[in-house]
């Protein structure tokens, strides 16, 4: 791992004209975004709007059909990009390695890249697990955990990387409200502590408006609006207002 860029600095992200088609169907239709270093940028939108696909492009898991993504001005396709920047992603499903214990999962990045000695890795693993409320579960297997616990382990694994850019895919789904608040607080603390840049994909309006510096609304593969939480709330676009204000009304179903 190169030390050319400090692990304590957040990075900027630029997305330009991003287009992606799956089986001829447009999933992303010319997405342009700029995320500043150390910013918490939330991408909101209905299911199937292309949020997760966009996130996968930013971390290089999907190749765009057109457009470009760069981090700190450097294309993510460039040689040695992943070795230069510490980027972490918290998958919606957790994506823990089922054959490894919780502790091995959390310390995987550090042990595989031989960044720290084993004792130090064990200390970091214990610290990160305690941070997400899973103290002492190092020896458990992922199959022994609930969905919410898996998500928290995935967050601990991302934190252990001490990333410059962290991508969250629905970080509070499957979590109870208390743990959702803990995760939101952790996203904010990370920003204060290591000035990490965070891109959060979420349906959770409380999380989005609680943590975001800026919010982008995506609909059918297009960015409808980008702005501060107040600007987004004030945006008169009917699709945005519907998405932000819709609530389940039991009375409608009572005959």
């Amino acid at each position: 791992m190169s030390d050319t860029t400090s692990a304590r600095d957040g990075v900027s992200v630029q997305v330009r004209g991003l287009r992606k088609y799956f089986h001829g169907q447009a999933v992303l239709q010319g997405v342009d975004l700029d995320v500043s270093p150390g910013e918490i940028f939330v991408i909101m939108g209905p299911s199937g709007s292309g949020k997760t696909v966009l996130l996968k492009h930013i971390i290089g898991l999907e190749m765009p059909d057109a457009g470009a993504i760069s981090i700190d001005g450097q294309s993510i396709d460039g040689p040695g990009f992943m070795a230069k920047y510490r980027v972490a992603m918290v998958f919606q499903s957790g994506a823990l390695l089922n054959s490894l214990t919780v502790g091995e999962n959390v310390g995987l990045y550090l042990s595989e890249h031989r960044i720290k000695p084993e004792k130090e890795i064990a200390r970091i693993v214990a610290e990160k697990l305690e941070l997400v409320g899973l103290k002492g579960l190092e020896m458990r297997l992922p199959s022994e955990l609930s969905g919410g616990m898996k998500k928290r382990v995935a967050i601990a694994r991302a934190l252990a990387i001490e990333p410059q850019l962290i991508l969250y895919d629905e970080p509070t789904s499957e979590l109870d409200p208390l743990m959702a608040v803990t995760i939101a607080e952790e996203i904010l603390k990370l920003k204060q502590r290591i000035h990490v840049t965070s891109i959060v994909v979420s349906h959770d309006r409380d999380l989005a408006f609680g943590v975001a510096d800026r919010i982008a609304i995506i609909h059918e593969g297009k960015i409808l609006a980008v702005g501060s939480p107040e600007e987004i709330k004030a945006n008169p676009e009917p699709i945005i207002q519907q998405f932000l204000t819709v609530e389940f009304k039991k009375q409608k179903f009572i005959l």
Partner: protein
Amino acid sequence: MFQNIGEMMILSWRTLLLLPQTFRQRRKVFDQLFEIGNTSLLMTCILSLFIGGVIALQSGPVLSERGLSSYIGGLVGLSICKELAPVMMSVLIAGRIGSAMSAEIGSMRVYQEIDALRTMNIDPIQYLVLPRLVAISFALPLLVIFSILVGWLGGAIVSMINHQIAVPFQAYFSNLREMVEVNDVVNGLIKSLFFAVIIGVVSCHQGLKTIGGPRGIGRSVTKAVVNSIVMILILDYFLTAFLLYFDK
């Protein structure tokens, strides 16, 4: 088909380039070696014992009728070490270990574990394919040596207890020593090494390109086993021809 062959060649090449990293992955290599040995040794023993036995049972009476029963040791010995042990063991390992490899890697692909590795800048080929390929390349020739020895023993037992053959242990092994050369055993081991690489590459390749959930995993496992066996049998012919040319 050509795309698959191309992808497998690229996977083999990339794994070959990563061979110097094997020491760093030694724990995973030992885990895989244990897995292969633990799940296959008993089966190898049973299969080889009966293969040796059945060859003796089929050919022994025919040889006896022509007064050639003293050649039974050499016949069983050569059949086992040059052809049956490497091919049968490879087919067995393709079924038992190749299927497990493609299922495990396929499941990791479907459940985004491989994506997670890539986001951590961990090369899935180094982390998943290299240890498996190295382990199977060691394990299969070892299993073949074991299979050869047990197969010879199976032939000897049947030759002794079958009243139509009735060749004692000592005479059986004396003829076997006379007819089977070290080169014959080495030929079998060379074959098994090639077959091991085929099983490893085909199974890991199928696992890595798995899509579509549990049904996709099942499809990958089937393809891994069937393609491995077909490729083993085709390669067996060409390897045999090649090795015979050098035996002359």
